[in-house]
């Protein structure tokens, strides 16, 4: 295929023709199907489960409950060991798996679910974080054990005898003195709700035990974390747990760390056959969600608008099990700082268990929560001081190379440039379609991705010049397979059409921390750089020993290399070397905190940043906001796949639009009241601003090849506060709670009239 005919991404042809096999499309020989019976109670003791009637129904093969876990470790986690494989004697949220019915078909399993009878003895429950902190709150866990350096570096700090599973504190400067002497002190509290990922492919997994151990076809974004957790549960050597990750229909963090594989594998273990469990979208909604947060900000400012001190106090609702919530809680506090010079800083974060769906990673963990608060308050300050909000930001902006926090890597982008480009682009859009009543709002976001510099890749250069890239980075839509191909092609000087990226399989792919936190493109590019260098060194050695060439004069070209003006194919090299006209070279790339002389150990490895500017109108009779135009700016250093990078930015911004305007998982009486896709509204094509522009800055300066940074999460950060800021500027109402529903906005308008 010529370069011109080659699609933008290696996976497009399969995807557009329906050939692409997603995890929910797979068939494994002999597999049977599990369906999950879920708790209808927010918090209860299970006093009995009657499975007899269900067991005798047609096609039913077996039923697994919490009483079947003898011989394996029934409790697991990634931050804290707090989660049963399936409810054991007690349920902690509506939706928790209580029993799995396995049958010959999904339909037969589903039918038999109704025949399983569960008796509950209700316990007091709590769904709000503030209530979970109360001294008399029901205790959701009797005691949990932090897992140090298990998935993230470090360990959670729960408080014994309470529902608190994480506490975090950081302080620099003299915060109290700064507050005492400040011209002005602003105190505001902001709320961010639970929101749901809604990756369009629901969670799905297949597990099979055999002589060679446990094989899992997983939708998990971190195959090696899945592997590790499963090895602990079943006491299997890690090398005997194989995790294969086909194409996944979206993740956004909802499939990060470890989600459903322990349950699927447990059922397969008990039943003794390959088992597939595919959730419905409603079940996936009961599996993971973003942590809701209340963020209290106290900020000291001089009369001319210079930030002098800031105190960030975050309270997060982590749901029934901690998952990666402890990391989210830390990031929410840090990401609430913003790209500003603040000499005195106090960060506090607390995350609590409640009887709700477990909170989990979601695109820029903690970021939207923290940025929502801080960027709303920046405009509050600007308004009170009579300073233009953009000007207030310029005055306080960190320059490239200055510290967000003394112990973190200095900011590596020019945020003033990004904000300037956002304004310019918006002026262009305004000029294209003049509209008298458009009101603008701006917000910025910065995030310190947890890049965990532990990664690896194999490059296999075949004798015919074709190249296979073997990596654990999963293709979840972000386009990693194309990035792997392009970087490998570039590093080896070969046409990209010669390169393919294999399906991740822990049996052959080197260890990698996981796919998330905007890290995969960067980490894999670094690993490929090393693997390509390894291959080049091998080519040089073999050329010297076999062909008598000087390695220093070898230059890779498409299909082979040149030396002293003579062209050699890879076969010209490998045929004499191996003695037969076959074979390959294998290059290994390993990334660790010690790679690149320790340069990859710094935290963060780069800053993921975004500037957003919106133009909105408001129907003052209904409170309905229309986002007419939006500009999203990100400094990504360098794009490997420019169109793909734009698409990531656009997707993140529109996902953020959903968070801003309507997304919220609501609880009443311990029950999720909008837990289906009928009731939970995500953005449709109709919600997209009529004018939308993504500006990607490619100035280099990042840690990857050509100065690239990770990207794909930043654009979700600024859009909600940008819209709220426009509301305040244009209509004099400051809404401090998301989403900005018509009702909430309308009430704010009424309150203003009544004042």
């Amino acid at each position: 295929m010529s370069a011109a005919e080659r699609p933008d991404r290696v996976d497009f042809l399969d995807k557009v023709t329906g050939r692409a096999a997603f995890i929910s499309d797979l068939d494994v020989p002999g597999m049977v199907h599990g369906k999950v019976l879920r708790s209808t109670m927010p918090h209860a003791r299970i006093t009995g489960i009657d499975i007899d009637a269900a067991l005798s129904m047609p096609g039913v093969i077996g039923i697994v409950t919490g009483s079947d876990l003898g011989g394996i470790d029934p409790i697991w986690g990634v931050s804290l060991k707090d989660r049963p494989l399936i409810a054991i004697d007690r349920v902690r949220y509506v939706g928790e798996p209580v029993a799995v019915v396995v049958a010959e078909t999904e339909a037969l399993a589903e039918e038999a679910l109704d025949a399983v009878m569960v008796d509950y003895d209700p316990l007091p429950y709590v769904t709000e974080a503030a209530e979970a902190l109360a001294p008399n709150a029901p205790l959701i866990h009797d005691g949990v054990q932090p897992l140090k350096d298990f998935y993230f570096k470090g360990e959670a700090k729960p408080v014994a005898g309470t529902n608190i599973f994480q506490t975090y504190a950081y302080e620099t400067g003299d915060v109290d003195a700064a507050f005492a002497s400040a011209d002005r002190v602003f105190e505001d509290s902001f709320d961010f709700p639970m929101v749901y990922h809604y990756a369009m492919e629901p969670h799905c997994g297949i597990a099979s035990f055999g002589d060679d151990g446990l094989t899992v076809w997983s939708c998990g974004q971190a195959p090696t974390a899945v592997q590790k957790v499963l090895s602990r549960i079943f006491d299997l050597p890690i090398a005997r747990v194989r995790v294969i990750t086909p194409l996944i229909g979206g993740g956004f963090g909802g499939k990060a760390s470890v989600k459903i594989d322990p349950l699927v594998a447990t059922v397969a273990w008990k039943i003794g056959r390959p088992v597939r469990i595919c959730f419905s979208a409603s079940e996936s909604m009961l599996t993971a969600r973003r942590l809701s947060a209340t963020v209290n900000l106290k900020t000291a400012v001089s009369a001319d608008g210079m930030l002098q001190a800031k105190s960030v106090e975050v309270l997060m609702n982590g749901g029934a099990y901690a998952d990666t919530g402890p990391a989210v809680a830390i990031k929410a506090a840090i990401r609430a700082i913003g790209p500003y010079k603040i000499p005195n800083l106090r960060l506090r974060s607390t995350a609590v268990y409640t009887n709700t769906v477990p909170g989990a990673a979601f695109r820029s963990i903690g970021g939207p929560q923290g940025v929502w608060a801080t960027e709303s308050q920046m405009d509050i300050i600007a308004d009170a001081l009579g300073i233009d909000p953009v000007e207030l930001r310029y005055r306080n902006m960190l320059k490239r190379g200055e510290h967000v926090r003394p112990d973190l890597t200095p900011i590596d982008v020019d945020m003033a440039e990004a904000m300037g480009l956002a304004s310019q682009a918006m002026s262009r859009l305004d000029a294209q379609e003049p509209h008298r009543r458009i009101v603008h709002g701006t917000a910025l976001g910065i995030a310190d991705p947890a890049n965990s510099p532990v990664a690896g890749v194999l490059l296999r250069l075949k004798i015919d010049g074709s190249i296979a890239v073997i990596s654990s980075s999963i293709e979840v839509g972000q386009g990693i397979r194309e990035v792997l191909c392009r970087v490998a092609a570039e590093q080896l000087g070969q046409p990209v059409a010669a390169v393919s990226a294999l399906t991740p399989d822990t049996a052959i792919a080197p260890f990698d921390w996981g796919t998330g936190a905007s890290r995969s493109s960067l980490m894999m590019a670094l690993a490929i750089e090393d693997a390509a260098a390894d291959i080049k060194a091998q080519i040089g050695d073999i050329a010297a020993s076999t062909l008598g060439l000087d390695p220093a004069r070898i230059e890779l070209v498409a299909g082979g290399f040149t030396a002293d003006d003579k062209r050699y194919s890879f076969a010209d090299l490998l045929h004499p070397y191996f003695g037969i006209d076959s074979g390959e070279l294998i290059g290994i790339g390993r990334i660790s905190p010690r790679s690149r002389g320790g340069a990859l150990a710094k935290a963060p490895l780069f800053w993921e940043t975004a500037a957003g500017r919106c133009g909105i109108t408001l129907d003052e009779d209904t409170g309905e906001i229309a986002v007419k135009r939006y500009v999203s700016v990100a400094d990504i250093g360098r794009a490997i796949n420019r169109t793909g990078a734009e698409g990531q930015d656009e997707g993140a911004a529109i996902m953020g639009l959903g968070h801003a305007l309507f997304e919220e998982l609501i609880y009443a009486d311990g029950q999720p009241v909008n837990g289906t896709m009928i009731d939970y509204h995500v953005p449709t094509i109709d919600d997209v601003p009529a004018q939308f522009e993504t500006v990607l800055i490619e100035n280099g300066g990042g840690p990857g090849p050509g100065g690239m940074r990770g990207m794909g999460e930043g654009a979700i950060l600024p859009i909600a506060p940008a819209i709220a800021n426009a509301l305040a500027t244009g209509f004099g109402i400051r809404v401090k709670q998301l989403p900005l529903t018509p009702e909430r906005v309308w009430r704010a308008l009424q309150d203003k009239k009544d004042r």
Partner: protein
Amino acid sequence: MADLASLDISFTLNGAPQTHSVAPFALLIDFLRDDLALKGTKRSCDVQVCGACTVLVDGLPVSSCTSLAADIDGKSVVTIEGLAEHGKLSPVQQAFVDHAAMQCGFCTPGMVLATTALLERHPHPTEQEIRHYLRGNICRCTGYIKILEAVKSLV
């Protein structure tokens, strides 16, 4: 099982006449995916909200998750597998590829089929018509920007 109650249906599938027996309660999505192994039709919401399971029945977009297989008797069904001819992408498929109008690709079969139906009925839709017509097809990845570009390129 349920042989007694099964119905014989005849229909055209991606241009080829077919006859099959289906249970009266079988959903079209299950019939396509499980009985005919046409896995390009995707299941997401199950409740006619997301459009991932869209197929064309007599040229109109239909949510196969909430349609009965029995109802395609006598009709013509097109699934995503039936759009490309002899390996050549349909114009809509080609536009989606050219404009990078997909990421995870899970919504893509439904989105492509809905767009195909739109352009059959309205070869020159306005932006408003495009938005209105594709409102029933959710994409969580792309933010729709490149999907809109792809569709507009065909107008």
